[in-house]
């Protein structure tokens, strides 16, 4: 029983670390690579994207998930929202932004991504 309890607590610790404490990996730099953000299976791929500060940026999205939530991407801080058609490349134009981290997500926040503006 002791072992099971320890295992349970270890699992809890793992959840806390994995979902909250873990510092995400390097972001993909949109100025170096020409990237398309694929919207499928509950995630934006890539989900951390570096863009240049003070410049208009265009991001390419490609939605492969039929669920209606995935059909809209929101950038709440800059009041941009775009419909993403299924299986069609969609350009989303973002206005120049100041440095910082901005999240983008679907209306229910099941898909979550981060823009790192530098």
């Amino acid at each position: 029983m002791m072992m099971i309890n320890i295992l349970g607590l270890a699992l809890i610790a793992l959840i806390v670390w994995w979902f909250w404490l873990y510092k995400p990996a390097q972001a993909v730099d949109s100025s170096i690579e020409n990237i398309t953000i694929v919207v499928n299976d509950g995630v934006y791929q890539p989900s951390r994207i570096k863009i240049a500060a003070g410049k208009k940026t265009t991001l390419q999205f490609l939605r492969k998930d039929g669920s209606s939530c995935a059909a809209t991407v929101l950038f709440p801080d800059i009041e941009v929202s775009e419909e993403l058609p299924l299986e069609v490349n969609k350009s989303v134009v973002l206005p120049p932004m100041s440095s910082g981290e901005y999240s983008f997500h679907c209306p229910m926040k099941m898909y979550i991504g981060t823009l790192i503006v530098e």
Partner: protein
Amino acid sequence: MNKLTSQNPIVNTQELIIDGASCASCVGKIEIALKNIPGVDSAEMNFALRTVSVTGQVAADSLIKTIEAIGYNAKSANDTSDDELLDEKEIADQKYYTRLMQQMWVALGLGIPLMIYSIAGGPMTVDTTLERGVWLFIGLFCAAIMYFSGKHFYIGAWKSFINHTANMDTLIALGTGTAWIYSMVVVFFPMALPEMARHVYFEASAMIIGLINLGLALEVKARGRTSEAIKRLIGLQAKTARVVRELEDKKQAIDIAIEQVQLNDIVRVRPGEKIPVDGVVTQGHTSIDESMLTGEPMPVEKVEGDEVVAGTLNKSGSILFKATRVGKDTALAQIINMVKRAQNSKPPIGRLADIISAYFVPVIMITAIVSALVWLNFGPDPALAFAVVSATSVLIIACPCALGLATPMSVMVGVGKAAEAGVLIRNGEALQTASKITAMILDKTGTITEGSPKVTDVLIADKSFTEHYILTVASSIESGSEHPLAQAIVDSTIEKGIEPENVTDFHAIAGHGVEAIFNGHQLLFGNQKLMLKNGVSLNGFVEQAQQLAKDAKTPMYLAIDNKLAAIIAVSDPIKSDSIDAIKRLQANGIRIVMLTGDNRATANAVAKKVGINEVFAEVLPEDKANKVAKLQAQGEIVGMTGDGINDAPALALANVGFAIGTGTDVAIESADITLMRGSLHGLADAIAVSKATLRNIKQNLFGAFIYNVAGVPFAAGLLYPVFGLMLNPVIAGAAMAFSSLTVVSNANRLRLFKPQ
């Protein structure tokens, strides 16, 4: 080759999508054809993307026609119309719905018989070798069905996991996975478990997957209805336009796709047809039904020089008009864009739900583990079975989606509903604040009144002048002024056949009036303050002026060579429905204050007529914002309604700025809410819609919070010690599937809301 150039060259880089180019050799053919068009500097085709990029001074339709002439189809890359997008979305939604329903039936096909068997008292335990064999077969069959019907959950859960995020898929995958794995352990190693715990839960896995797919499918249908308003707006757009163009040296009317209409094209519209793009009438007269955009039921007369707006309906006459705004620049396109943007923006009330949903899933996972551990440590026999049931139920019943959906669904319907009534709400924040307004400042001119004043009285003070001369002098001096009253005087005199003459040394004195020299005479024209400031004697005319003001007319003094010559009174009629609309606002408990630059007596007279008790009169344009601040300092949440012309700072400072009577010109950046028709009922409607929407959001949020707050402890088995109640994971799955459906359906109730 058909080489057409347009009269309206556009200098830029254009991107076209080419259809029908199947071989690499097409590239050269298309590029050469395009480069042959006069004005094209370069044309480069990307065969992989089937796009061609063209630079030069040439219109898109010339490019498209040239490409069509050599046997391909082309369209501008950026003009996938809203209509097409909507159709595509509907087709995609239908496909998704059909797939979910298939997956649901397959999962329930196994789940329901097993469930009936279990409810009918069939043993779900594994004791004999035969039972092991049968359950192993069912377990493997169940796995196949879980894969077919629920692979999207498992793949989604895994991908989120490796991205360090967790979502609804994670909970479903963990919940159904736990039930299945435990059941397989029972099948393979029954002896390792206490006898009472040798129970399989395959029916739970299959049922949960089936029910959640059903919930998602019904949600797709319900969500479709939430965007009805935007569909209606998009549906207003005409698909083709009949333009008059010069073809083979003669003018011809040709039908072209709406995307190909260009600036300055002459468009012909016959009775019963929709106006395809925005423009100015160049020939003919007609009446146009603008109700679909403005909510204004009466058709509007249009003659040469009047503006027409895309999406409205031509009723009676045939007209020609010049296109002034096309494509994404038309008022309708901008309205659609603004409504879409607002529909997806969140009012502050939704932020808490956002914060919670960000931590929600991992917290539920932890709760499930804690619950299982508590059962294992302190639960009665079979503790292991209880632990599995409680952990599975906790994972399955928790619904982050209901929380996530609560706000956006209502905003979507509410903003759409407002747009139908001719009320454009900029964003979720404006929507929320509008529902809390306690004081409303109404600008008098153009808001409460028509905004088109007319000369009503001319009182001659110096009998040596004739009325004709007085009006000539007045219109001459006012023709240089931009004040709305000045325009009234000029218009009224022109109606009487009096043409304004030139004045010199014209000066406008803000809040007072104007001064100028006319034929060597020094003129002063303005209010009492202007006269007193210049020492003009008003001998006995003050009473007459006050009498005019009491009749809600605005008296203006004209002095020639510093001697009072006449009083000209101008009156701005009150809009027919202002009184009713103000009553509606007051019935909502809103303090109404009238604001005007007009003199106090006139202002009071107008206020009295419309039932307003508080008046800020004689306010200089630059002081309007101060009046807003004054009410805010009294603790009021202030709405400011004006025409957006000289009250932009006040509109911006107010908690919510309403721009009224701007017709279909939505380019007013300082307003949070734009009322497309001139009636103040639009204002009352806007507040009513925002209140209804906020109420709906609160119901949704409350429902979603209560559901999770009550459901999770119940699933964990908190009621077991007292009532002996334990939640079946299948019921948890059904509850979860229908909780988000309930939120969407509640939001849909808003569609039935009627403002009046």
